[in-house]
């Protein structure tokens, strides 16, 4: 199988890695690029822990062949905070609400929630429940995660209104 140099645009930066055609995006992100914030918990598309955004849409990086994601805009949890280091409102809300316990689902939750809020800035509780229903969390019982997402949504909207 042909090895090749793959080019990936991750969190706004172009990164290159030697890849093989059968390699999964999650392995390239974690092992080749060294961004270990993205987690793998089932490797079969059933838990959402490996969720990253490709062209703004949430995908399971454990089911995505790395070659298909070349030159596309990829966002991982490491790319959430602002350039000056300030936490994304979702990250801050997860801390404030204690929406993470062991943290293994957190990166995936944050990425799914980012996509959700980008598509629907004013979600209801039910919208959030539905939007995150593909992300499994074994620790929190979800209540505080949903609280955090709703809180972050409000803050993002409020901040936008101030700037507008």
């Amino acid at each position: 199988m042909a090895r090749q140099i793959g080019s990936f645009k991750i969190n706004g930066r172009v990164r290159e890695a030697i890849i093989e055609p059968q390699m999964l995006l999650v392995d390239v992100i974690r092992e080749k690029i060294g961004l270990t914030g993205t987690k793998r918990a089932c490797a079969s598309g059933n838990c959402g822990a490996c969720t990253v955004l490709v062209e703004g849409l949430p995908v399971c990086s454990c089911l995505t062949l790395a070659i298909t994601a070349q030159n596309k805009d990829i966002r991982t949890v490491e790319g959430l905070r602002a350039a000056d280091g300030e936490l994304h409102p979702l990250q801050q809300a997860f801390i404030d609400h204690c929406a993470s316990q062991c943290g293994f689902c957190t990166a995936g939750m944050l990425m799914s929630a980012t996509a959700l809020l980008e598509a629907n800035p004013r979600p209801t509780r039910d919208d959030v429940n539905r939007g995150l229903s593909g992300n499994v969390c074994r620790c929190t019982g979800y209540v505080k995660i949903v609280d955090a997402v709703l809180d972050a949504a409000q803050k993002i909207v409020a901040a936008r209104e101030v700037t507008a």
Partner: protein
Amino acid sequence: MSEHLSYVGKRMPKPDLAGKVTGEAKYTEDLVIPGMLEGRILRSPHAHALIKSIDISKAKALPGVVCVLTHKDCPEQKFSRSTMAEALPEFAFSGERQDQYILSEKARYVGDWIAAVAAEDIYAAERALELIEVEYEVLPAVLDPFSAMAKDAPKVHDDVKANVAFEMDHPFNTGDVDKAFAEADAVAEFSGVNSRQKHLHLETDAAIAYFEADSRLVIVSPSQGPHLAKKHLTRRVFTDLDDGDIRWISPTIGGGFGARLALGVEPVAVLLARASKRPVRVTSTREEDFSGYSSRTDQHQTIRVAATKDGKLLAVEQKIVSDAGAYLSHSATTSIVNMQKTLGLLRCDNIRGHLTVAYTNTPTTSGFRGYGNPEGAFVFQQALDRLAEKIGMDPMEFRLRNLKQVGDPSCFVPSVLEHTKLEECIRLGAERFGWSQKWTGWGEKREGRYRRGVGMSILTHASGAGGFLLEHSSAVMKVLSDGTLNLIVSPCEMGQGILGALAQVGAESSGLRYEQVRVTTGDTDVTMFDIGSHASRSMLVIGNAVAAAGAKVKDQIKALAVAKFELRQVSATAEQIDVREGRVFLTDNPKIGFDVREIAYDAIYNFGAEGGQIVATGSYLSTSHHPNHQAAFAEVEVDTETGQVTVARYVVAHDIGRAINPLLVEAQLEGSAVQGIGFALTEDFVIDPVSGEVLSDSLLTYRLPTTMDVPDMDNLLVEDPLPAGPYGAKGVGEAGLVNPAPSIANAVYDAVGIRIHSLPMSADKVLWALRHGDQAAKGSSRVSGQHL
């Protein structure tokens, strides 16, 4: 004067979250040691088979493969995956049978570990597993504990008669049980069995082993109790090593729930690292975690209860038959704890319990959050409801009439109950839930497709096992020159929030700032001995150790402050000085004071000063189990056309002593309640009854609760400080998983008049029972002959 508290009781953010929301927190599999090999384990495809021969030559010849090991390369002593033998008194050892090798000499379940490979990369390691040629002689297998104990059944372990791994009477059986049953006005019985709930920590099992300077062995793994694991590994497995020869590091842990209390792949990583003289990382897949790691023990039970017609509980009798799986691990001890909690919950003069644990050719089971208590409560709380129905009494009232009071023998007999707020929990929960309006009496017929019902359940659980386990712990505190408090404590951070709560206790007791507490944990070279994070013990035991260290730090600061005040022309004795939130001040004139930094800085960087850095240790030994309590109320809706049960409302009131951080306590209660709802309704561990294979080996076939399964929940705290607790706190980590299954089961009965005898109460079982009546169910409890 009311007590002033700066941090205790406040909803502070927990310190580990910054790294978790940014992706910076490092878990075992995120770490890379230069030169590290990838290790993988070959697992048996048969439930029971002799290994005639293993040919590793092809695997060894594969480029990139560094070593291939089998049973022949393992230490000769047997050990247990449970490390608890090192923390128990001699008399409890028989429940900690040392019964396995790292790699098996005979396959005892589908998934048993047969060989291990280390290779330069994961692809070579996986390919090598395929090239190992094992010749098996397949043997007949026993897949449930009753056939395992039948006459002439195949033996799982040659040296164990009738596959009985463990058997005991409850050590505190008391009274005349037969007489009490004979004379009672009413007798009820319930039989049931829980499923093998999987811990399902999202981080699959992994371990790294390598050598640092002087060939000292370092193990990195998500262990819940690295000190004990290290002792166990050197005492029982690698006996050429001793306690000081291993440094064990538990980094951030991706969920534990009791699973990490037992050894996972660590012994294999050590074996491979020693053979290859290279760092080795052993990993496992989700499917392997399902079949080869651990789960809750399925405990088949029959419970009989008797009462007078005015609701006095006269007798409780419990018989348990537990299925250990292929190796004993924690299955005997969780079953013993089930008896303790079940038989010890209520006031009762006549109790009798008996337990048998059998080996089968199924995956090893282990300790899981609640540790026997959820298993028992599912059966016991339904038996109590049946009895209440027989005497025509409100089930809440029946329980209230039989609560233990302070001074009664506690559930951990022979100790005495020194504190309980269970009655307050029941009353508070009932009021919030609206029990008196929603509970409409026994036998009410409901109509329509969707039928609602309500049920309740109560529990007692330990805050550590003082008097039974080695319940001592120590904390170290160092104060840095800027007033930062370095707090070194032993509990592992697996998400439970304990580090935050301990940081609050540390800041409160020392007078330093919470924002400046830096907690270090998880490295056995740095932390003091401790038996690990389990049994809801850390808050009480380690919290007390931290409070003791903090008091010493505060005293040192006060003593050093006397001279500082003198420089400011203020004369004060240490007793007239206090420290709070990083500020030193005069007790009777708080305006006069200064930042603690001045003292902290001088203690280290002033050449002329006497002494040195402010340092203190604190230790605590717990001699009791200081129970916490809880009452729960559930309202369910049953779809009579599909059998689907939905939990609409769930109210919990917990006897917490004092919540050091209510946010963290709520987080524990919410998380454990949803785990309990999964246990109750959807989580089904299915083993093929012919092949012994685990059929539910993915998240598609084993259904975890999602956001869509969370009911409208209230978690209420009953706060009345426990005198022995740090600032009055008791434990909370496990209790929340106990009440969901029984309260939901009782609510299902209230809604549709059927009782389900095995967990989970999945739609298919409910529908079957609705169509045919629960008395007509096929099969019967093998413990008592009662219908399932």
